[in-house]
């Protein structure tokens, strides 16, 4: 009984410490954000961090939690971006709705891909997702009449909600920030639910998961749908934020960037995708003058993760926490 009480005290102290740590971190982050918002360009970087964070969170639900790899997530990003762009520009549907429709169409494609993909594992699944990414890329590159091919589409209208037009990067940022927080909240709730447990069970051991009454295929498809929806949503946001899209933004390299962000930030963790997105977006911007070496830099990041950070940046925090906890335990003893 006594040991339980000591344990409880420890956890209470730990949560207090954690809360303090969280408050300090939030304070620093808001200070940085406040500083960056003063400049248009820096605000744009913040927007990119948010957008990538949404897309990578989507990839995390698929790869991190159900263990289904995807090297073709740029496809959903493209579907979201192009659908929203074309519907708003050519059909004249209000942007708010086109963004949702873009995300929904990406989700639909996710489900279609998931039907064959849910039967594949490992390299077969990787190849299928790469192939799908290439197909979408080729499609938007060659359909000149619809997508204007490699010249891209310019003059994509801004988002308008209840008569308020988002015209500055700063205003977009606050919207995106709210959406990122919503996505993180939803993800947290999802992971700690019956569905989330089914996802993780499938990742850990699909045979045992089926033995426990989990319809493995159904949940694999569901993960694909959620993942494609979020990445499609991010794609649509990207199009309206930047105002210009072309196939160059949706190459295979983009899929690899999402994967690098996920692995570097921390797979199967709540804030890992956001941290990974933040670090890689900033580094990409700093390295702007070495664009041709971009993929080399990402490759180095992946190697760093493989050899030194198997759990990503989030893993470092966990390690520190463990060391602190161990020290603390020694003191108590």
């Amino acid at each position, binding site marked *: 009984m006594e040991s339980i009480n000591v344990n409880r005290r420890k956890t209470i102290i730990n949560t207090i410490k954690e809360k303090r740590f969280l408050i300090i971190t939030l304070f620093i982050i808001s200070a940085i954000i406040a500083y960056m918002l003063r400049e248009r360009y820096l605000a744009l970087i913040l927007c990119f961090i948010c957008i990538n964070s949404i897309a990578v969170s989507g990839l995390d639900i698929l790869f991190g939690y159900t263990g289904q790899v995807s090297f073709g997530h740029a496809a959903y990003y493209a579907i979201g971006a192009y659908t929203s762009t074309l519907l708003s520009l050519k059909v004249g549907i209000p942007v708010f709705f086109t963004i949702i429709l873009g995300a929904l169409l990406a989700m639909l494609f996710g489900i279609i891909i998931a039907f064959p993909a849910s039967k594949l594992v490992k390299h077969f699944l990787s190849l299928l997702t790469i192939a799908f990414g290439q197909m979408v890329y080729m499609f938007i590159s060659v359909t000149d009449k619809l997508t204007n091919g490699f010249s891209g589409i310019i003059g994509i209208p801004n988002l308008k909600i209840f008569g308020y037009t988002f015209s500055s990067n700063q205003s977009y940022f606050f919207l995106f920030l709210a959406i990122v927080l919503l996505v993180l909240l*939803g993800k947290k*709730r*999802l992971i700690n*639910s*019956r*569905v*989330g*447990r*089914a996802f*993780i*069970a499938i990742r*850990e*051991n699909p*045979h*045992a*998961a*089926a*033995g*426990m*009454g*989990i*319809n*493995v295929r159904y949940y694999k498809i*569901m993960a694909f749908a*959620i993942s494609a929806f979020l990445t499609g949503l991010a794609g649509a946001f990207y199009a309206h934020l930047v105002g210009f899209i072309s196939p160059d933004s949706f190459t295979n390299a983009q899929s690899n960037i999402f994967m690098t962000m996920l692995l570097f930030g921390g797979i199967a963790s709540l804030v890992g995708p956001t941290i990974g997105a933040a670090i890689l977006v900033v580094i990409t911007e700093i390295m702007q003058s070495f664009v041709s070496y971009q993929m080399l830099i990402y490759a180095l990041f992946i190697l760093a993760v493989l050899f030194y950070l198997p759990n990503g940046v989030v893993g470092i925090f966990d390690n520190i926490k463990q060391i602190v906890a161990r020290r603390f335990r020694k003191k108590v003893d």
Partner: protein
Amino acid sequence: MLKLNDVTIKFGGLTAVNQVSAEIAKGSIFGLIGPNGAGKTTLFNIISGVYAPTSGSVIFNGKEIQGTAPYKINQLGISRTYQNINLFKKMSVLENVKVGCHSISNAGLFDAILRTKNQKKEEKLIEEKSLEILEFMDLKDKAYYKASNLSYGEQRRLEISRALASDPQLILLDEPAAGMNGREKEELSETIRKINERGITVLLVEHDMKLVMNVTDIICVLNYGKKIALGEPAYIQSHPDVIEAYLGGDLND
């Protein structure tokens, strides 16, 4: 409760299970024994839906279930453990049992994201139920351990806990005593009886003779995929074919 009618399965030229018929009465503890490679686990896999038999039928509560997908079999009320431990290693002990509750709960994606009233209620029930089962299986103080950090015997117990979580009518235990020491085995016999007292029918595959003879009501003996004897432990112990095929000598050593 469960009836096997001439169940046969062939893998290429090999007949792993050959025309096995048996009936498992409701509320009984049924033992399935045989030498290595006799087809015990294969028969288990047929009942739990992993394999579809080449011919013959499996009838559960009057319904043919052969060839039904494993997840549906679980939902029908048959749950199982695995010979080579198949836990969700990175999940906590408690979460493993919670996954076992999948069949008896039904909150979906939107319930989870919106945290509906029903979902919260259901989560609370799942938590209470899982903790109750862990207490029953004497694992409650390890509830927040990672499954992979448990000892071997504890992992075996967790396998059973997880299988109990779906409120099964029939539980299939595939060599639950493998790798356990003498004391753990004794506790296991006790546990199997306690599970049976909960009204759950038990089908037990086990190598440990003492345990099987001790705990089962009826035993079926397989050899080379064929049923060679079926009866009460005392009858099996003295059955000449069984002694010849499997035991190779006196049981009462």
